[in-house]
């Protein structure tokens, strides 16, 4: 079967609809992952052993199981206990939780990398715990984390096609429905691949810039 440019232009508007949802899901998922990751990182540092152990185990569990199954779990199991989520919301929660366990490690490394002297200086200046975090630790811990966080957000972006399995109409799902309608797979699936490749090549450039700007962090 030949590559048909006319067909490509015909399906382009549908695919662009999907691109919008893909980008929306990535952005919302990133915000959620950043928040969830911070929560996990802080909970694991908590002096309360039960809390830190439980959260640690849960994070380990989420990281050791496939995102696809977690999405199914959120989408199919939660309605049984009365929580009915629209597909996109379920997908964003899945992405955010899954990648939150990864970003938690970035936060952990970032916070651990703040030298001990800074904590001691904060104590010597009689700052409260809250003041220490907001004025001393976080401002120093965040910049080196940025490249590593961006790395995970790009990884998340590449996982968004999984959302098609729970009927989110993102790029992959649009491509599949186009392919099934016309029974032509070459153009839609290849275009999806090309789209992801182009975006990730650009994001490599962005990452290099972020690394130069904010310095690198051990991952």
């Amino acid at each position, binding site marked *: 079967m030949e590559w048909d440019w006319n067909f490509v232009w015909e399906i382009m508007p549908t695919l662009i609809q999907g691109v919008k949802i893909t980008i929306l899901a990535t952005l919302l998922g990133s915000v959620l992952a950043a928040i969830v990751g911070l929560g996990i990182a802080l909970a694991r540092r908590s002096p309360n052993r039960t809390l830190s152990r439980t959260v640690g185990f849960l994070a380990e569990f989420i990281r050791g199981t496939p995102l696809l199954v977690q999405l199914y779990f959120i989408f199919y199991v939660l*309605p049984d206990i009365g929580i009915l989520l629209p597909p996109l919301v379920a997908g964003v929660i899945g992405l955010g939780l899954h990648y939150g366990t990864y970003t938690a490690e970035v936060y952990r490394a970032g916070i651990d990398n703040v030298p001990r002297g800074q904590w001691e200086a904060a104590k010597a200046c009689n700052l409260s715990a809250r003041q220490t975090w907001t004025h001393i630790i976080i401002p120093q811990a965040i910049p080196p984390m940025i490249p590593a966080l961006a790395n995970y957000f790009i990884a998340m972006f590449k996982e968004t096609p999984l959302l098609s399995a729970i009927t989110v109409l993102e790029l*992959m799902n649009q491509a599949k429905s186009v392919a099934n309608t016309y029974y032509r797979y070459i153009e839609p699936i290849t275009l999806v691949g090309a789209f992801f490749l182009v975006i990730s090549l650009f994001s490599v450039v962005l990452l290099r810039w972020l690394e130069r700007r904010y310095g690198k962090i051990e991952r």
Partner: protein
Amino acid sequence: MTQWSGYFGLILQGALVTIELTLMGSVLALFMAFLAGMGRLSRFFVLRALATAYIEFFRGTSIFVQLFWAYFVLPFIGISLTPLQAGVLALGLNVGAYAAEVVRGAIQSIGREQYEACIALNLGRWQGMRHIILPQALLVMLPTFGNNAIELLKATAVVSLISLTDLTFQAQVVRAQTGNTLVPFSTILILYFILALLISWGVRSLERRMARGLDGVRA
């Protein structure tokens, strides 16, 4: 009350498929990792360019898109793959690209003096690699290979979408037949987690074995 034993057999069959895929995918990934990882360090520009193109392509597009491409697009250009072949191919090539960077990093992490010692002992490029560099680099690669293998295990869930009867697929079957969602999805989440624990335990004990007698040698 649903008859769970029969369904549990179904899930176990799925687990076997998942394990089979993980093993075969890992073998292909390992092969590709060394091929592309060493290719990136080659003296010849063509080999370096090929290896870089392979790595960037497979890391830049998502595993899901690659799998669909292998399964739906390749038949149109005359290559028909069974779901299992397509799954192993996509998983192996994708994870191989990530692992290739691990191979490259590990080889480059070996100190300059080791290379100089190889030259001093009049070892050829290949001899030095085989007897001096690789045995040391392998130990550096191992922990990250373990993580890559877990990523591969998690990625196998995606093959359920091209009708391969793995754990996730069987869970969907059980869901469709019983209407129960909590039991099948919880079961497979736990099974995936156990498999991931097995991999990390296996890699750790392998690492201990290989590190035996190297205490004090390694920096």
